[in-house]
C-alpha cells in the first residue's frame, strides 16, 4: 500500500500493511477526484454483474483521514460504486443483508504519496486538466526536489511533452496562472494560451527593446488584454509569429521587419496577429513536400516487404530506426495539434 514518506526513493515503495475488515458502503467516502467518465459503462456493468453473483472478492484499500469518520478509498473505487448501485437496487448478499465491502485499512498516505497515486490513476484512466496537473506537478517537484523530466515521467506517468507543457505554465507568475482557473468561463484564459504565448514572450523580451521596457509581467498583460479584446482570435496564432521569425532568420531585412511587427503587436492594442504576420508565412509548398515525403516513405517501405526479416541483427537495427522515426513523427504530430480556426474547441 502506498504508505509513503517524502524522503526520497524508498518512499515510493508500496508497503502492504493494515487490517482487513468488512465494511458497509456507507462507511466509505467516494473519491473526490475520480471523474465519473473514468468508468467505462460496459466494463462497470460486467463488474457489477460479477459482484452481484460472487460479492467483492478483492479487498479495497482504504484509509481514514485524520478527524474523518468515513474511510477514503485509495484503490477500489469501481468495486465501491458497483456495491453502492447494487445496494440501491435492493440487491442482497447471501446473508440476506446489503452487500458489504472487504477492505484493507492502511495508514493515511503522506500528501506526496497520495498525490502520486492520484497521478497514476488519472494517467491510466482520464487525464486531468492541464492547469491542475501543472499545480500538482509543481508540488511533486518541490516535495521531492526533482526537476528532471525523465525522473518526473517515471514518478508521475506523464509524457515528456505533458511535463514540458506543465513546466511552461509554471513559468508564468501565479496571478496569470490563476486566470486559467477563473470560475467565470467568459473571463477564463485557456491554459494553451500560456503555452503558445511563451516562446513569443521569450522572443520579444530578448529581441525587442520597447517590449523589454514593459517588463515580463507588463508584456504578458498586453497579450492577455489582446486576447480578451479578441485581437488574438486563436491561441494557435502565436505560432504565426514564431514561424515568421524563424522563416526570415536568413534574411536580415525581413527579420528586422518581423521584430518591428512584434513590437507593434505588443504595443498597439488594435493590431491583429494575422494582419501583422501573414505576409511572412512561407508558401504552402513545403507542406505539400512533407505530404509527398510521407506518402513516398510508406510506399517504399511497403515495397521492401520487411515483415518476415529473419536476420536478428538487421531486424534490430531496422526496429531501432523505425522507433526513431515514430518518436519524431509523434512529436511533430503533437506539436501540430490545435486549430487555426477561432471557432474550433479550445483546451
Amino acid at each position, binding site marked *: 500500500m502506498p504508505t509513503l514518506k517524502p524522503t526520497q526513493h524508498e518512499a515510493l515503495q508500496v508497503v502492504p500493511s493494515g487490517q482487513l475488515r468488512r465494511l458497509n458502503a456507507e462507511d466509505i467516502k*467516494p473519491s473526490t477526484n475520480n471523474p465519473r467518465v473514468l468508468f467505462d459503462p460496459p466494463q462497470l456493468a460486467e463488474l457489477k454483474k460479477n459482484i452481484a453473483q460472487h460479492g467483492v472478492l478483492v479487498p479495497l484499500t482504504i484509509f481514514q483521514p485524520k*478527524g*474523518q469518520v468515513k474511510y477514503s478509498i485509495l484503490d477500489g473505487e469501481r468495486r465501491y460504486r458497483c456495491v453502492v448501485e447494487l445496494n440501491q437496487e435492493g440487491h442482497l448478499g447471501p446473508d440476506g443483508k446489503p452487500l458489504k465491502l472487504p477492505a484493507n485499512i492502511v495508514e493515511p498516505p503522506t500528501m506526496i504519496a497520495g*498525490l502520486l497515486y492520484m497521478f497514476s490513476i488519472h494517467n491510466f484512466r482520464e487525464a*486531468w486538466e492541464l492547469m491542475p496537473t501543472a499545480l500538482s506537478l509543481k508540488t511533486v517537484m518541490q516535495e521531492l526536489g526533482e526537476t528532471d523530466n525523465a525522473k518526473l515521467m517515471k514518478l508521475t506517468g506523464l509524457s515528456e511533452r505533458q511535463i514540458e507543457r506543465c513546466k511552461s505554465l509554471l513559468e508564468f507568475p*501565479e496571478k496569470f496562472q490563476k486566470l486559467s*482557473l477563473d470560475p467565470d468561463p467568459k473571463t477564463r484564459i485557456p491554459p494553451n494560451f500560456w503555452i503558445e504565448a511563451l516562446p513569443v514572450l521569450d522572443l520579444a523580451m530578448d529581441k525587442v527593446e520597447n517590449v523589454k521596457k514593459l517588463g515580463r509581467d507588463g508584456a504578458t498583460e498586453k497579450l492577455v488584454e489582446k486576447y480578451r479584446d479578441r485581437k488574438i482570435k486563436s491561441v494557435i496564432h502565436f505560432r504565426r509569429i514564431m514561424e515568421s521569425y524563424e522563416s526570415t532568420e536568413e534574411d536580415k531585412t525581413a527579420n528586422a521587419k518581423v521584430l518591428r511587427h512584434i513590437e507593434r503587436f505588443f504595443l498597439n492594442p488594435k493590431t491583429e496577429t494575422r494582419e501583422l504576420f501573414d505576409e511572412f508565412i512561407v508558401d504552402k509548398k513545403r507542406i505539400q513536400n512533407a505530404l509527398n515525403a510521407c506518402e513516398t516513405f510508406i510506399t517504399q517501405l511497403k515495397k521492401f516487404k520487411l515483415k518476415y526479416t529473419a536476420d536478428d541483427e538487421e531486424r534490430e537495427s531496422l526496429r531501432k530506426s523505425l522507433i526513431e522515426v515514430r518518436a519524431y513523427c509523434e512529436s511533430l504530430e503533437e506539436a501540430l495539434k490545435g486549430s487555426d480556426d477561432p471557432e474550433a474547441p479550445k483546451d
Partner: protein
Amino acid sequence: MWRFYQSVSAALRFHDYKPQPLGFLSARRWMMQFKKDDQEHAALLLENVIYLSERKTRRILVEQNEALMARLARAGIPSKNLIYVQVHDPGSSSPVMLNMLRDACSLERRGCRFMDSRDSYGITKLTSELKEGALIYVDDFVGTGNQFCEARDFAMKNVFVPTFSEFLLVPSICEEAIYKIAAKGIEAFSGHVHSKAERPLHDNSAILEPSAKARLREVCKGISPRMSLGYKDLATMVVLYRNAPNSVPAVLRGNLNQTPFAGIFPRASDLPLKKLG
C-alpha cells in the same frame, strides 16, 4: 383575543428579523390578510416557524465549531491546518456566517485559514502547502443540498491531496440534504436537522389537519403558483434572522414587492426597491 396574543408572541419571537422590522402591527396585519376561517391555521403555521435569531445562530455555530475543532485536535490536526470555506457568491449568507464565526471564535488568532469556494486555485495551492487538514464549509441553511454540493464540487475540483477531511458547519440543515452530503463523505455539524415532519405544509407532516393544510396550500398557490411551497416544494419552516430561505412557503414570503399579499418574512429580494437620495 387569541389574534392579539399571537401577534404579540410573533413580535417578541421574531423582533430581530433583518430584511424588514417585525412588530405587533405587522404580525397582526399579516394575520388579517387571511380569511377568518384560515386565520387559526395561519397562526398555527406561524407557531411552527423555527426562528434562528442572531444570538441563537451565533451560539449554534460556535458550539458546533468548538466540538469540531476539539475532535480534529484530538485527531492530531492543529487549527492552523483548518481551512474555512465560504460557499456561494459574495454577499450571500455564507460569508456573513463565516465572519460571525471567525470573530466569535477568534479563528484568525488560532491560525485558521479562510477561502472562497470559487477560488479553486487558492484552495488547490493551500491544500498542497498544508499537506493534511480539514476543509470546513460554512453556510446558514442547507435545503436540498444541490447548491451546496455544486459549490463544493467546484471548490474541490482541483484538490488532489487526499489527506483532507471535509465538514459542513451550518445552523440548520434539511434531512434531504444530510443524505446527499453524507454520500459525498462530508459530515455536517449542525444545530438542527429540519425533518419533513416539522413542516406543516409538507406532504409528510401531520401537524395540520388535512383540510387546513389544503386551504393554506391553496393560499400559497394563489400568491406564487410556481413557488407555492418554496424551492423544490421543500416547505421548510426555518427562518434565519438575516433572511428567510427561498424554500419557505409563499404565505411567509408574500408576493414580490409585497403586493397584493405581504409576507411576514419577506426575503430581502422580495421587498420593493427603496428610493435613493
